[in-house]
Every structure is written in structure tokens, then in C-alpha cells.
């Protein structure tokens, strides 16, 4: 039987054998995952985590792939935590426990994996959630693109009836910060574009700001982090599921100049760009000002951008400052640059 040099396993790259459940994979688990994700439940190393939850819980899952895996303002690890905890936060649930599955391409740099895992551990601190179970598969070269991560999470519901079905005529629509930073950052970091930019992804966990809103006795009728499909997709879904119209004031929608610039060059709309730490809320008109004040403690760019009406049910309308209006449509599946 061949002997395994445990020291050598820590070398440069992740090997096929490390996803196999044998001693090699134990090295990965012990030296990396247990070290960074350490908590009582995880360290029990049972087949399944045993959890004590007596309240109403929210449960969600998401898989993460992003290219490049390291980008300004974050990386695939940070997104995989922020994304899933944000999905819980958007239901008014405090993120508690997460599972985490890695699918790693053979030969993936060990240092990069450690950076990703560390970044996940750091991001967990923001909401206080714990990774309590996990799995790792290493697959042959070409079977995945570098690394895919899945996280599932459960959270304790702190506020009832937050739902995309709940928007009511008269509600105010707010956004927690300027939109489109993540999409624009990823685009600008694509190798083939060679754009120099200081843009940073908005990638961040949102539970702390959501908690503050809920603790102030404001119950949003709906909340949604504007990830893929951007703000345009969220608002269109709301308009349809709640059978209402959302009217936006174009000049109130916060967009950073650099994001605007990238949109100008390539013919994109900031409303179509993905966000990873920006959410849209609908609150009672009487709560709008107070909500904005709380959001502004976290980002000065938070804004009230529109209201719920009955003008064209199922539609989102953008009103311009010079008296015209247009529909804000769902974005197309693949964003392609314009030709001329």
C-alpha cells in the first residue's frame, strides 16, 4: 500500500484524491474547513448536524459560480455566504446555520482555496451565522470551471408577512445603496475588456441593516436583494405577483458615476446589472422617511426611488424629469454589448 505524505498534500494544488473521502480528504477538512469554520456543531463531525430550532424558520439554497473568482470587493467565497444569508434576511429571518458544498476542479491552487475559505469565515462574522455541515468533491480538470460553491441556510423568522405578494398601493419603494456596482465590476475585470477602474463590488451581508430596520418596528411589505437580473427583475416580479404598478422617478435612482460610465460605453442599463449587497424594499408611505434614515446609516446613497400605484398593473414605469415615461422591462438573459 502506498504511503501518503500528508505534508505534500498541503502543497500547491487540490488533488482528485482529496474529494474521495479517504485520508487525503481528511487533510483538507481538518486543515482548512475545520480551522476556519470552527464551531461546536461542525466539529462533532457527525453524518448530519443536529440543530435546535423552536421558532418559525426560513430555508434557502443557492449555488455560486463567478468569473473571475477573485474580484474587487469580494470573491466567490464572500458571495456564497452573503448571497445565502441575504436571501434569509430578505424574508426577515436572522441567518443561523449554513451548509456548504464545494465542487473543486483538480489542480485548483490550494492557496486560492484557503483565501476563499478565509473570506467565507470573515463574512460569516457579519451575520453571526455558522457553517454546520459541508461536503467537498474534487472533479477532473474541465469538469467544472475552477470552483463551484453551494450554500444552504436556515434562519429564524423575526418579522412576518414580508413577501413579494404584499405590495400595496401607496407604498414607497427604496433602495439600500447605489445600484449595479457588482455587475459593472465583474464586467470591467473581464480580461478581454482591459478597463482600468476603481469600482468595487457591493458584495456584502445585509442582515445587520435589515435587523436595524425590523427593530425599529418597520415591517416592509417586501424586501429583495437585487442579484441576477438587477433591480429591473425584482421590481417587475413584484409588479406582477402583487398585481400593482411600480412608478420610479428616474433621477432618484442612485448610480455611481463609474457604473454609469461602463453602461455608456457598452450600452447596458444599471438597472439590469447584478448586485450582491444591495436590496430594494417596499414600505408604508408613513415609514419611508424613517426607513431611509436607517439605510443611510449604512450607505449615504440609499434613496426613495418610487411608489406603488395602480397606473399600469403588472408594469414598472420610469418617469423622467422632463415629463415623459417608459416601461422598465425585464432584462434579457445574456447581456451583450451594443454594436455601434
Amino acid at each position: 500500500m502506498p504511503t501518503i505524505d500528508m505534508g505534500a498534500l498541503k502543497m500547491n494544488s487540490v488533488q482528485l484524491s482529496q474529494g474521495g473521502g479517504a485520508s487525503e480528504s481528511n487533510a483538507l477538512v481538518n486543515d482548512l474547513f475545520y480551522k476556519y469554520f470552527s464551531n461546536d456543531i461542525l466539529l462533532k463531525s457527525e453524518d448530519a448536524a443536529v440543530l435546535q430550532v423552536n421558532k418559525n424558520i426560513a430555508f434557502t439554497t443557492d449555488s455560486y459560480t463567478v468569473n473571475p473568482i477573485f474580484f474587487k470587493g469580494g470573491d466567490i467565497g464572500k458571495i456564497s455566504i452573503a448571497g445565502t444569508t441575504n436571501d434569509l434576511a430578505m424574508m426577515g429571518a436572522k441567518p443561523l446555520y449554513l451548509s456548504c458544498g464545494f465542487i473543486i476542479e483538480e489542480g485548483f491552487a490550494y492557496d486560492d482555496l484557503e483565501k476563499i475559505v478565509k473570506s467565507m469565515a470573515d463574512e460569516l462574522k457579519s451575520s453571526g451565522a455558522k457553517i454546520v455541515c459541508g461536503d467537498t468533491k474534487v472533479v477532473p480538470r474541465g469538469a467544472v470551471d475552477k470552483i463551484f460553491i453551494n450554500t444552504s441556510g436556515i434562519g429564524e423568522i423575526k418579522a412576518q408577512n414580508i413577501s413579494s405578494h404584499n405590495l400595496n398601493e401607496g407604498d414607497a419603494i427604496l433602495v439600500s445603496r447605489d445600484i449595479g456596482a457588482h455587475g459593472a465590476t465583474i464586467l470591467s475585470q473581464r480580461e478581454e475588456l482591459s478597463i482600468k477602474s476603481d469600482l468595487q463590488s457591493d458584495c456584502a451581508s445585509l442582515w445587520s441593516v435589515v435587523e436595524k430596520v425590523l427593530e425599529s418596528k418597520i415591517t416592509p411589505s417586501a424586501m429583495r436583494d437585487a442579484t441576477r437580473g438587477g433591480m429591473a427583475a425584482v421590481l417587475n416580479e413584484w409588479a406582477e405577483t402583487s398585481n400593482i404598478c411600480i412608478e420610479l422617478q428616474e433621477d432618484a435612482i442612485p448610480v455611481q458615476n463609474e457604473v454609469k460610465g461602463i453602461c455608456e460605453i457598452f450600452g447596458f442599463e444599471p438597472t439590469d446589472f447584478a448586485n450582491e449587497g444591495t436590496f430594494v424594499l417596499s414600505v408604508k408611505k408613513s415609514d419611508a422617511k424613517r426607513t431611509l434614515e436607517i439605510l443611510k446609516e449604512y450607505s449615504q446613497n440609499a434613496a426613495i426611488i418610487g411608489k406603488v400605484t395602480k397606473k399600469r398593473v403588472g408594469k414598472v414605469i420610469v418617469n423622467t424629469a422632463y415629463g415623459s415615461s417608459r416601461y422598465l422591462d425585464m432584462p434579457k438573459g445574456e447581456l451583450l454589448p451594443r454594436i455601434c
Partner: protein
Amino acid sequence: MELKDLYEGFRNPQTIKSFASEIAKEAKNLKEPLRVMEVCGGHTHTIMKYGLLQILPDNIKFVHGPGCPVCIMPKERIDHAISLAKMDNTILCTLGDMIRVPGSKSSLAKERANGADIRALYSPLDVIKIAEENSDKSIVFFAIGFETTTPMTAAVIDYVVKNKISNVFFHINHVLVPPAVRAIMNPGKAKINAFIGPSHVSVITGSKIYEPLSNEYKTPIVVSGFEPVDVMEAILLLVKQKNAGKAEVEIEYKRSVTRDGNIKAQELIEKHLEVREHFRWRGIGDIPQSALKLKDEYSHLDAEVQFRDKLSNEEIDDHKQCICGTILQGLAYPQDCKVFAKVCTPNNPLGSCMVSDEGACNAYYRYGSIENE
């Protein structure tokens, strides 16, 4: 200086409002309604996105022209791209929306999903990098666009020729604005009495290419920028010309366009490309001398010559229900089409005008129905 400093003034609400009221005043004196064709799809996009129709008087109507390079590509040429992409050891490169346009049976997007190596480029010059990185493969650049994008293709050809790169081929689909305008005006049905001239095309060609058109059809032409203030100013200039009984070429987009255009770019194009005898436009049909092709001395780079046996020249018409052709000729509006926004949507386009952001149907679908309901 930031990028926004370049365009913010051209989207200033107060300026747009001032133009709107000035136009309203001047338009009262129009003897007949102004039917303005904006030739370029970029202008269609601006008009719909900024809702300019809603702030203009009723006697000013837009007729959406054929200036969207994706929209005018006939199905047989898209089939060419698909056939080329399916060749062994081949990478097909093209620009933006072309990926989505349906050919007779498939689209480049579908073929990409089936495993063909198809790249949507941000810049035609990326072709060179791809060719260098894949020296064992054939790189076919499916070149599209009006006069705007032609110089970039010419620059790639120039580089390939000078550096004797042997694995790059070109499938040239560059088309020309003036012959298309004639094809629309000559039948006399579209009743167009004013033109907004293209922005980026004119940067390259200069405004002089419109002078014969303005003379022949006794029609004012104002070359306009793509921003809403540009379009509003262009409309005002057109209305003023009409009221003064003039039919001249004027440049509103003075910050980028001259009468003579970019001479260097024009020379580069002339060095490598020449006018093609015939080119079939989607929905409009054959327009003589309306497109470019590689000069014969570069036939070793010409995908249409080198891969002749793989390419069919059978003409393929649009779906029977699709009226893109009539729309491109300015004879109908998207909402006149029975399948518009029902069967035909941006996610499932039957015709090319629904595919591209610059297509009239797409712009109406995205922004337009507010005024149509």
C-alpha cells in the same frame, strides 16, 4: 474630467423641456405633418428610451429606418455564420446581438450551446489575440455593421495582411447608409419628408454623403448625436428648415462630425474593401451596391471564397407573420404586426427587429407601449 461630464448636459431635463416648447412653437407653422425618418437604430433607441414622442407635438411623427446592422441581415447570411461556426477546428467571432438572431433553423447562441466555439467580441481587434492564442484553428470574423464599424474591420484586415497571419478569415457584411435610404425613398410610399442622419456613421463618412440625397429628394437632413438633447435639437432644426422651405444637410452633432469625416479611416477601408454588386437586405430585398466585400487580391482571407463549398446562397425569407421588412421600409409600426409582443418577444424573436436593442420592435417592446395603449 469624468465620462458623465461628456453626456450629462445632453440629458439635462431643463434643456430637453426648453427644446420641447421651442419645437411646439415652431411646429405650429408646419404646412404638413413632419414625417421624420431616423435612419439609425441608435436614434430609435434614444427616442423610445427617453419617451421623446410624448413631449413632441402631434404633427411630428417618427418613421423608424433600416439602420440596425443586425436587423437587416438576411437569414441566409446568418446561416453562413452558423455553417462556418460548425466547421471543425474553427472559432467564429462576431459582435454583440448577432449571437441571438435566428437564421433559418438555428442561431449562433443555439450553436454555441451545442458546442461550437462562438465568441461575442467587444472589439474586432480581439480577433488578432484569439488568432495568436489558437494558431492551430481557423478564426472566422463575421464582420457586421454600417460605416461605423467598417474601419475596425479594415484595421484587423490590415494587421492580418501586414503580419501575414494565416489563420484569420473574414466574412464581410458591412453595409452602406445612402443606398438604403434610396431604396426606401424611391418607391415613394413611405412619405418621408425629413431625415435625422446617423451619429457614428457620420463621424467616419462625414456629412457629405447625404448631400446628394438631400438634393434628390428635396428633403432636409440633420446629422444628430445620440443623446436626447441632440435629437430634440435636430428636430428643431428640421422644423425650421421646413418652415423656411429649405432642404439642406445640417450637422447638429458638431462635436464629432465634420463634412469630410475621418479621412484616415476612409482610406483604410478603400485599401481593403470594395463595393459589392448586390446585397440582399432582410425585408427590403436586393439593393445594388449597398454593401462591401474584400478586394479580390485578398480572396485568400475571404471566408466566402475559401469556404464556398460550405455556404448556401439560397435566399430565405422571413417568417410569414413577421413584418420586419415593412417596418424597416417605414411603411408600418411594430404594433401593426400581428405577432408583435405575443409570439414575437425579445426572448423568442421571430424577426430581427425584435432581436437587437436598436431594432424598432425591440425598442417598442421595451419602452414603447405606454403611448400606444
